[in-house]
Each structure stands twice: as structure tokens, then as C-alpha cells.
């Protein structure tokens, strides 16, 4: 059957004409089968990116991971061209063009074939659909190349992955490569994906290009920091073109806006404000009209003229590289400490799914004190954001004391009863990758962790007090002073107290006092910390208090009580499980109005195998059933199916 309808031919043509880096950089890929191995940099093999397609037939799915500016898009372009040479049919799908209207449309799609059709029709270079691909001869391999999973929110990104997974499963001779930021995803069939990490360019590769194009002297004059920045293909490409380099990525991006786009510092601030407003809808595409209204006509014109801002015929615009948009957003947030709050952080990081903006923000802060304050503010909102702030060699930019605190918080979580919290904490320590982080990863237990932290130096008074609290002996009796830390305004002290109390012995009177706090304290954060403590003490009275907390008006308290009820169910060896899960089932209608609580409930059902009572899956089932009923829609149905599948896989039926 002839297949070359116009749209298919157009896609092929566009693939062949897509521009590539010039000069071409030699990029290496580290291959792994699990995220754990990727985070630990334990690769099965490291080879040249040109071999990316060689192993695709084995599982049909590759997740191409890497930092922003790491040349993932360039690799996909190369793969596409190679695929045409191999007489396959590659279809690139660019998620950077995702706009707010796409979120609305996406919600209406019910199954994987609708979703893949939508992705193809909306984001392939020429509108084609599943039907067009189906008309290809059955023997012709199809290759989906989905670029920029990180361009959409975490939940939508996960749904895209699921849809791709199903499409590959049920479509003969069809494969997919999906590019994503270096974040852990919950893959439905992890054994069917291969993970490929795009590694930073080797220093030798950077030197080769710099010496050849800019000159031997230029290479010798580069500092260690500058050489490190150039290991990112995006920045090396800029250096080879413009022969200039700054000592941070943020400064480099600012310089570009000044020199290439011709903006003044004041104009950049206005552009940054516009860029931030556009991130509120969690998309990198936006209406040029709304952008111009804030950024101003002249700066917008200059960005368009220089090519930094690409505008489609329908008025949809996006920056030519997301790092520019990220820089502007981080510049806007970092400019004023009043903006260092939950709402701004959520916008800046796409709801906690992309932390490049955090790194760029830190580079723009002048002193260690400011950086410490910023990371404390991040910590108040999201522990993982604080951890990412320290990643990629940035620990030196913070005070040793603050750095130790963040390390310690993750180290403790490695022994969390909830598997996913423990895994995420280990991931973060891997990406922080300091000597301290490595020793904490190697620790054999919480006792080891306390000893390691006790050895960390720090002169600040607050740090000495914190360290004494953090390292207080496991199993010792708590005193009333210990309990008072729970109500401290300082979140580091408050949460450390909450964690430490969980390792101590609490009298019945102290637990009564905590239950009263959970019921009555005026601060939702304090009630949340208390709920966290009570989860560790699996008694009927605490379970009842936590069950009442499910109806607390504050979502964070519902969140904490949900987690702790599951913990109580597990720690009571199943004895309190019927009560805990019946309470959760009764509250399902209320909790279902808070998606973050429902998501957390699903997450914490996966408890460590040694803590899971016998028949854990069956104990949990009535509450799953109640949540299924409370959240009846297609997406939720899939999520609960997946939860049940994971429960059965982990604990049997």
C-alpha cells in the first residue's frame, strides 16, 4: 500500500532538514536499567551517543536523561536522521510547544491511543496522526522521538510516559525515545525501559573545540569553573560563537540578553516579570500578546529580532532555549525575598518538577548568608528543592552549617518506613555528591548517620544547638523541652524536633499533650509536625487522633495525618490497620478534594517490606476501593490500578 501521504513525506523532509550543532560535539551516554544506578552513576556501559539506536529493538523504549543545555534535543535530531537512513519512520514530537490550552485538552483524553494521536497532531513538525502511521507497511519500523518531557508538569509528564509505554506495547515494530530532565519517574514497566544519561562533555572534548576555534591561549586562560560550565554543549556552543564566558551560567545567560538581545538591566527585569507570569500556567509556550503587555513592546521586538523569542503564526511564542526562560524566571524570584514563598517556588519549578531555576537563582545571590536564607525558604516549602539547591557542586556556595543540615535531613530519610521517601532521599544525596553525602549514603543505619553528623564542624550558635538536638541518642526519653521545639517558628528546628521525637521514648502524658496540640494548636504547620510524630507511636488513641485530623481544615494536616495513619497501620503489625484504613475510607470523599493528599496516600502505601504486616495488600484494599469511588474518573482509575499492581508486586495478594 502506498504510504507517502503529504504529511508523512513532510515529516520525513523536516527531519532531514533539522539543524544540528556546528561543530558537532562528541557526546557520551551512560546506560543503566534502574534510576538507582543512574543516580549512583553505576552504568552498564558508557558509549558514544551515535550508538543510541543500536539497542532500541531490545525493549523498544529509551528514556534519554540529562541536564538542561546538555544537548538532548540535538541527540534526538541525530537519531531521527540516522533512523531515516535505516529506512525507518521517525516522528519528532516537541513538547516545548505545549501551552495552557493543551492541559485542558489533555484532561479530556481517555486512553493511550487518543493521547498519542493528540501528541502527534499537536507537536509533530507536520500534523500526522496514529492513522497515518498505521498506513505504513507493517514491516516499517516507526520511531517516536518525544522531546522535553520536563516541559510539562510532573503529572502530565508521567501520563505521557504511560501513553507511550502502552503505544509501544501494542504497536508492532514501534519504538520510542523520550528525553527528560534528570529526575526519577514512576515507570509502569521499568524493566521495559532503558535509561540513557547524557553525560557532560569530557574536558578533553571541550579543550579540543576551544583550542581549535578560539585558540590555545583561550583554553589556558579559562578557570576551573569556566571549564566546567563549558562541559554543557549549550554554553560551549555559545563560547565558540561569541568567544566570551562568565563564571556562572546565570551570568552567561544575562550577558547574552544584554549583548545579543540588546536589553538593559531594567528591561531584563521587566522581561523577567513577563517570563514569570507566563510560567504560572506551567508551560513554556505563551501568547506573545500577553508577554508583550508586561515586557514592553521594544524589548519584545528585540528578543524576536535576535531570535531569542520564537513566535508562531498563531501568536504562540517560546524562548529558543528553555534555559533563557528559566534564567528570567529565577531572576524575577530571586530579586526580592518577599517572593521566596510557596506560591512563587511552585510556579518557578513547575510544581516541584524542574529545579534548573533553583540552580540559576542561587547563582544570582551574592553572599552565603543570602544563599542560606534562600535555601531555608526552599526547605520551608519542599525539602527536595533544598536538596537540589546543593546539587552539582553548589555546596561550597552555602555555609558549611546549612549544608550539613540539608545533608542530615536527607540522611535520616533513608531509613523512612515509606519506600519512596527513602529512595528519593538517597537520590538527592547522590546528586549532592559531596564527601559528606557519600559517607551518608554508605552509612549502615541511623546510628551511623548521627555519628557522622556529630563530627561535622560549625561555629554558628544555632548550628551547635541544632546539632545537639539532631544527634540526641536514639531511644532516650524525651523531656518537655524537646517537645517545645515542635512549636518553634524556625522550620529547621521545628522539623528536626519532629523527626527527633520519633526516635525517642514518649510518655503517655507527652503523647496526650501532642494529641491536644493536633486537635487545638493554632498553627497548621505545628499540627502537621505533631501528626508526623504521632505516626511513630502506634496506639489506638493516637490512631483516633490522627483519624480526626483527616478532617482538619488545613490540607497539610490532612496530608500529615494520612501518612501517619498508614504508618500506624504498618507499625502496629496490622492490628490497627482495619481502624486506620476504615478511617481513611470514611474520609475518602473529603480527602479526594486534595489531589496532593491522594497522591501521597498512594505513595505511602508502599512501606518497607520488613514493616509491612502479612496480607498488607488485602488490609489496604477497602480504603483503595473507597478512594476509587470518591475519585471516579479515567485518570484516577488508572492511578489506582497502578497502585494495586504495585502493592501486589511488592507484597503479594
Amino acid at each position, binding site marked *: 500500500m502506498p504510504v507517502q501521504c503529504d504529511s508523512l513525506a513532510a515529516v520525513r523532509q523536516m527531519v532531514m532538514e533539522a539543524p544540528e550543532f556546528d561543530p558537532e560535539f562528541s557526546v557520551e551516554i551512560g546506560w543503566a536499567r534502574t534510576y538507582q544506578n543512574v543516580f549512583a552513576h553505576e552504568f552498564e556501559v558508557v558509549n558514544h551517543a551515535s550508538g543510541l539506536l543500536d539497542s532500541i529493538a531490545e525493549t523498544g523504549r529509551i528514556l534519554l536523561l540529562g541536564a538542561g543545555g546538555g544537548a538532548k534535543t540535538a541527540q534526538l535530531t541525530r537519531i531521527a536522521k540516522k533512523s531515516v537512513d535505516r529506512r525507518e519512520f521517525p516522528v519528532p514530537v516537541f513538547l516545548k510547544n505545549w501551552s495552557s490550552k493543551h492541559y485542558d485538552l489533555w484532561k479530556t483524553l481517555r486512553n493511550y491511543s487518543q493521547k498519542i494521536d493528540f501528541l502527534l497532531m499537536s507537536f509533530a513538525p507536520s500534523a500526522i496522526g496514529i492513522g497515518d502511521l498505521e498506513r505504513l507497511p507493517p514491516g516499517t519500523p516507526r520511531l517516536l522521538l518525544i522531546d522535553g518531557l520536563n516541559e510539562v508538569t510532573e503529572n502530565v509528564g508521567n501520563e505521557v510516559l504511560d501513553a507511550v509505554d502502552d503505544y509501544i506495547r*501494542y504497536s508492532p515494530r514501534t519504538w520510542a525515545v523520550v528525553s527528560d530532565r534528570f529526575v526519577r519517574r514512576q515507570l509502569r514497566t521499568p524493566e521495559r525501559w532503558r535509561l540513557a544519561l547524557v553525560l557532560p562533555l569530557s574536558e578533553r572534548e571541550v579543550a579540543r573545540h576551544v583550542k581549535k576555534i578560539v585558540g590555545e591561549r583561550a583554553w589556558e586562560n579559562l578557570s576551573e569553573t569556566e571549564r566546567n560550565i563549558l562541559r554543557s554543549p549549550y554554553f560551549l556552543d555559545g563560547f565558540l560563537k561569541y568567544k566570551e564566558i562568565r563564571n556562572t551560567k546565570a551570568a552567561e545567560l544575562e550577558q547574552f540578553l544584554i549583548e545579543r538581545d540588546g536589553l538593559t538591566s531594567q528591561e531584563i527585569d521587566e522581561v523577567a516579570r513577563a517570563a514569570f507570569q507566563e510560567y504560572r500556567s506551567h508551560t513554556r509556550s505563551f501568547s506573545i500578546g500577553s508577554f508583550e503587555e508586561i515586557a514592553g513592546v521594544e524589548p519584545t521586538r528585540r528578543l524576536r529580532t535576535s531570535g531569542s523569542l520564537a513566535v508562531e503564526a498563531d501568536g504562540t511564542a517560546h524562548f529558543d532555549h528553555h534555559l533563557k526562560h528559566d534564567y528570567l524566571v529565577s531572576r524575577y524570584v530571586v530579586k526580592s525575598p518577599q517572593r521566596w514563598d510557596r506560591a512563587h517556588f511552585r510556579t518557578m519549578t513547575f510544581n516541584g518538577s524542574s529545579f534548573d531555576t533553583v540552580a540559576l537563582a542561587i547563582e544570582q545571590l551574592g553572599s552565603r548568608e543570602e544563599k542560606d536564607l534562600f535555601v531555608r525558604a526552599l526547605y520551608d516549602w519542599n525539602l527536595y528543592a533544598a536538596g537540589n539547591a546543593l546539587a552539582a557542586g553548589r555546596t561550597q556556595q552555602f555555609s558549611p552549617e546549612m549544608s550539613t543540615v540539608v545533608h542530615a535531613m536527607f540522611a535520616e530519610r533513608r531509613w523512612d518506613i515509606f519506600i519512596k521517601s527513602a529512595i528519593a532521599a538517597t537520590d538527592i544525596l547522590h546528586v549532592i555528591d559531596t564527601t559528606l553525602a557519600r559517607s551518608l549514603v554508605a552509612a549502615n543505619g541511623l546510628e551511623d548517620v548521627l555519628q557522622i553528623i556529630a563530627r561535622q564542624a560549625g561555629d554558628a550558635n544555632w548550628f551547635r544547638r541544632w546539632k545537639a538536638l539532631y544527634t540526641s541518642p536514639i531511644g532516650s526519653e524525651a523531656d518537655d523541652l524537646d517537645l517545645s521545639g515542635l512549636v518553634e517558628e524556625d522550620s529547621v528546628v521545628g522539623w528536626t524536633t519532629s523527626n527527633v521525637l520519633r526516635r525517642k521514648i514518649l510518655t503517655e502524658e507527652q503523647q496526650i499533650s501532642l494529641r491536644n496540640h493536633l486537635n487545638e494548636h493554632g498553627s497548621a504547620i505545628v499540627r502537621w509536625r505533631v501528626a508526623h510524630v504521632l505516626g511513630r507511636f502506634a496506639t489506638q488513641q493516637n490512631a483516633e487522633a490522627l483519624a480526626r485530623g483527616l478532617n482538619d481544615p488545613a490540607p497539610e494536616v490532612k496530608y500529615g495525618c494520612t501518612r501517619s495513619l498508614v504508618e500506624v497501620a504498618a507499625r502496629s503489625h496490622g492490628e490497627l490497620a482495619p481502624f486506620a484504613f476504615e478511617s481513611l475510607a470514611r474520609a475518602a470523599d473529603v480527602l479526594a478534594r486534595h489531589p496532593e493528599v491522594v497522591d501521597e496516600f498512594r505513595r505511602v502505601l508502599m512501606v518497607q517490606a520488613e514493616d509491612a504486616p502479612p496480607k498488607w495488600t488485602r488490609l489496604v484494599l477497602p480504603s483503595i*476501593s473507597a478512594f476509587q469511588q470518591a475519585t471516579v474518573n479515567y485518570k484516577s482509575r488508572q492511578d489506582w490500578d497502578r497502585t494495586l*499492581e504495585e502493592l501486589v508486586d511488592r507484597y503479594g495478594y
Partner: protein
Amino acid sequence: MADLEGKKGRAAIAILTITIEEFEIVQGLFGLEENIAHTPYFAKRGRKSPFDVVARRCTSQTNAVSHRTAGEIIEDFFPEFLIVVGTAGGCQGRDNVALGDVVVADYIEYAGYWKFKAGQMLERKVPFDQPSLYLHQNYIERLRVQPHEWRRHISIARPEPGDPTLRVGSIISGDILMGDAENEFQQQVIGHFDKALAVEMEAYGVARATFESRTAVHYNPQFLVIRGVCDYVNADAAGNQQDRVRWTRYAVSCAGSVAIALSELLAARSKPSWRKRLSDWIGGKS
């Protein structure tokens, strides 16, 4: 239908079982002795793709797991026929269903995603395939009428005197294990599906995977669920457990015997090459 190749090769018939016990009995009946390297699949010794029959089992009970496993089978082999073989709890008192009988589903009732509201059970529908009319019409009916064609394969002694019967009817597939007549939810479900002959926990998952694989004209899988009755779901829990201990192996053997008789009939059809090979093998020539 195009001869489609999956990631591990091609196969005409794929058999899915759930428990280890079920798998071992089915493996013995079909002679699927050799593991296909680096996969959970078994095939006849010395065979290479295209395979006549491959078999594997789910790692656990529940529709969620069978859905994933059936999807993997389709991805790996694009089999022409996908057959679930195992046991089920019979609904005592319906259509004379008895222990050791084989229920071949002609309809799958999914007992999940219900909303309970003001005393009503509101079903939330999910699309999924129903068992193959082609297989029922051309082969299962024949085996029902001529039971000696499948009974001769039964390899395990019957716990009590009598003969098994092949019954065609609907089965309930849910996510909650049933086997306690006193359980309120179970009573609701069995009462709601008042014609169902048996209850199990995997058919819906396979049916949904089969449905989801129908996105191209090149692939038209036929699937079937064959279940031997090993206990009664509407008996008291203790009696139920006793029956299961006594009857499971025999019930699996009966279901497997229907599956192998069906394979013989499929092999006798005219004829791509795999059918001849299947026919030769069943006839003992290889």
C-alpha cells in the same frame, strides 16, 4: 491477519496461568519444557520463533497484574490466540455447576469501579474485549458436545467419582478475593450478576489488554478464558478452603485439557506453516 513479530518473536498460541501449581500442570500437559532464554516464557524443547505455543504465568493474582502480563505477551509475540487457563470459584446452585467442571467464559462481568450511592450500585464502565466468538462457535461448542475429546487429556485423578462437564457461561472478574458466603460485598456482587457461573480475578485484565491491542487492522487476537471449578464462592469459608485443597489440581488439569484439545483443533485448520508444526507436535511427530 499479518504475521506480526513481537519483541521476542512470533507465536500462534499464548497461554497464561496464574499460580505456580496451575502453570506446572499446564506446562506438563503441553510439554512446554524449555525456557526461552532471558524471558519468563516456556516453549516446546528446541523450538525457535515462530513458536507454536508459548506459556507464562502472572507473578500474582489480580486483574492489574494480569492486564500487565497479557500486555507483555502481546508486545513480545503478537499471538493469534491468547488463552487464560486456571481455576475459579463456582457459583453453587447455578446451571448445576459442580467441582471439577470447566467453565469457558462467553461473557466477562467486571466487578469493580462501582459507585455506591443511596443504596444503589452504579457501575462505571470500562471498555474491554469479550471472549472470542470464533473460538466458541467453531471449537468450544464441539468440545462441549463431545467431551471425550478433552477428557482424555486429564492427567490427575478425580477426588470423587464422576465426570467433569464443560459449561459455557458468564464469569465475574473482580479485584477482591471471594470465598466467604457471609461477606456483604460478595453477596452484592454475586446477586447483581445473577447468571454468572464462576468468579475469578484475572480475566478482566486480559480482556482489557486484548481490547487495548486493537488499534490496527493488522492485529485481531482471539482470547478465551478456561477455568476449572475448584471451590464454591458461596459456601462457608471453611468448607471453601477444604474444597480448594482437594480439587485445585484436578480442576486445573480439566481446564488444561480443554485448552490442549482446543489447540489440536486449531492445528488441524488449513494452514500456515505453524499450524502444521503444531499438528505434528500434538500428533507426536516432533
